[in-house]
């Protein structure tokens, strides 16, 4: 039993205690401007709620996470289906799609910042002039696409592994029974990918809610704070010395992820059970 001790000591000290602190310091006026830390009740929450910051940041974070989950899974699934057969071309292509997964998210952000500059490389290719990263409506979608681009290789790998676990004879049996290729694909193989879908959707959703690097490197939360997800807010307010506000948002993120994790995993698992 004492084999558990060192691991759980580290977890307790560096993970659970700070998390517990979140529930304390979110209700104080801790900042870099004062020496003392005093309890202030719900002031941080009411202040963040009243100026609209809280709900805007929440809305943007959830929207971002949902967009990333959709795009990343569409791309990953599409690539897996495209590259399923074990040919030389496909193997090389799979390796290429893993490069973004290995690269630092920060670097990916800078690459796309350069690509998407007004009259930059992408605009030149299309012969247009559009500020991809300065549109108050659509930039969040663009950034979510970049996030999905970075991680689509991982989703692809997991869908590929899922496709490999489906025995050939099941599809063959369906074909003999007269199902078209299209039908046997959508009706038999896709439903059997449920575990891979669970894993991919859950990791994409929860991972992007905790995102930071890509948004920071492409827009820094702009334009007009329309891409300011919770971690960007935390980073910014921490830099301003408003530690209590940053802690409050950190607690909000914790609760958001915790609240979303259980239903998301539950719903996806249940779907798996039905299928």
């Amino acid at each position, binding site marked *: *039993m004492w*084999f*558990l001790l*060192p*691991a*759980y000591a*580290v*977890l307790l*000290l*560096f*993970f659970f205690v*700070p*998390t517990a*602190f*979140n529930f304390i*310091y979110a209700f104080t006026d801790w900042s870099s401007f004062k020496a003392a830390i005093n309890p202030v009740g719900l002031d941080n929450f009411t202040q963040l709620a009243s100026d609209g910051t809280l709900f805007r940041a929440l809305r943007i974070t959830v929207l971002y996470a949902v967009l990333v989950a959709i795009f990343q899974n569409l791309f990953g699934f599409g*690539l897996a289906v*495209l*590259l399923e*057969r074990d040919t030389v*071309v496909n193997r090389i*292509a799979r*390796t*290429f*799609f893993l*490069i973004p*997964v*290995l690269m*630092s*998210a*920060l*670097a990916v952000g*800078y*690459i796309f910042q*350069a*690509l998407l500059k007004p009259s*930059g*490389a992408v605009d030149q*290719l299309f012969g247009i002039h559009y500020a991809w990263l300065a549109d108050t409506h659509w930039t969040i979608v663009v950034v979510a696409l970049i996030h999905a*681009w970075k991680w689509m290789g991982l989703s692809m*790998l*997991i869908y*590929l*592994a899922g496709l490999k676990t489906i025995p050939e004879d099941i599809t063959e049996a369906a074909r003999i029974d007269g199902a078209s290729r299209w039908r046997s*694909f959508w009706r038999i193989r896709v439903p059997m990918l449920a*575990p891979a879908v669970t*894993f991919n959707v*859950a990791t994409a959703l*929860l991972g992007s*809610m905790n995102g*930071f*690097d890509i948004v920071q*490197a492409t827009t*820094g939360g702009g334009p007009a704070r329309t891409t300011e997800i919770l971690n960007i807010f935390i*980073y910014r307010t921490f830099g301003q010395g408003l*530690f209590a506000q940053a*802690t409050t948002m*950190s607690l909000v*993120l914790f609760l958001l992820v*915790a609240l979303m994790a259980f239903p998301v995993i539950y719903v996806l698992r249940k779907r798996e059970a039905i299928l």
Partner: protein
Amino acid sequence: MSDSPIWRRLQPIVTAALVVVLLGIPLWLVVATAGKSQGEAIQPDLTPPGHWQLWANLRQVWTEGQVPGAFLGSLIIVVPTVAGVLILGSMAAWVLARRASRVTAVLYALGISGIILPPAVITVVLLLRQLGLAGTVIGMIGVYMGIYLSTVIFFVTGFVRTIPEALEEAAQIDGASPFAVFRRIVLPLLRPVLATATILICLYVWNDVFYAFFVIGGRVDTLPLNLFRVASAGLYLNNWHLIFAYVILMSLPLIAVFAVAQRRIISGITGGAVK
């Protein structure tokens, strides 16, 4: 999806086109821009450099961008973190997998909760200050271990459950201490899953900038922190050739590791996900 003759012909072409558009363009932008002079790189685009000076740019970044120091900083954080989480995590996972009781079930749930729940980044800084570890390498290692132990516990516990207990029992009967059983019998068997965990955690820690910013920002330099600092300080403003030269330098170690251990990484990543 289908194996009609037309598609069989078309598929490699579609694949090649996708690789060129989705990966070729961004990666070419990095290499081409990193090979340009400052004047050419001010407006980064896809034209090849008039005169390749990639090597000179890499050398300039290496000396002026404080790369060796940051590289060392990254190394002295990544190596102990990975070694620590692997050893502590597999010790705990062994016990968790072998003892089925209500207590271990609760401990397991707590142990893997960190996979989903975001760490409390602000209050961990406060805690480290109280411990006198703020801004130190040890503090950073502790924080990373707290974050990634859950990943190791999750992967290794699942793996230990698949290996038969007979070997360990035999060794115990022969009078081996629990420590000897763990070191001589369990640990060697865990090799494949530990390889996977090593890769994943290296990937996360090597590329992390968010947690590093809060814990050691400004005190200890790591490669991503350094990139973040110089790129956002405006020091490299209009120096896209240097930013991308830095990106190349920073990504090379991981890509080299990947090239060597590609097969193992792929089977490792996918093995745990689709069960």
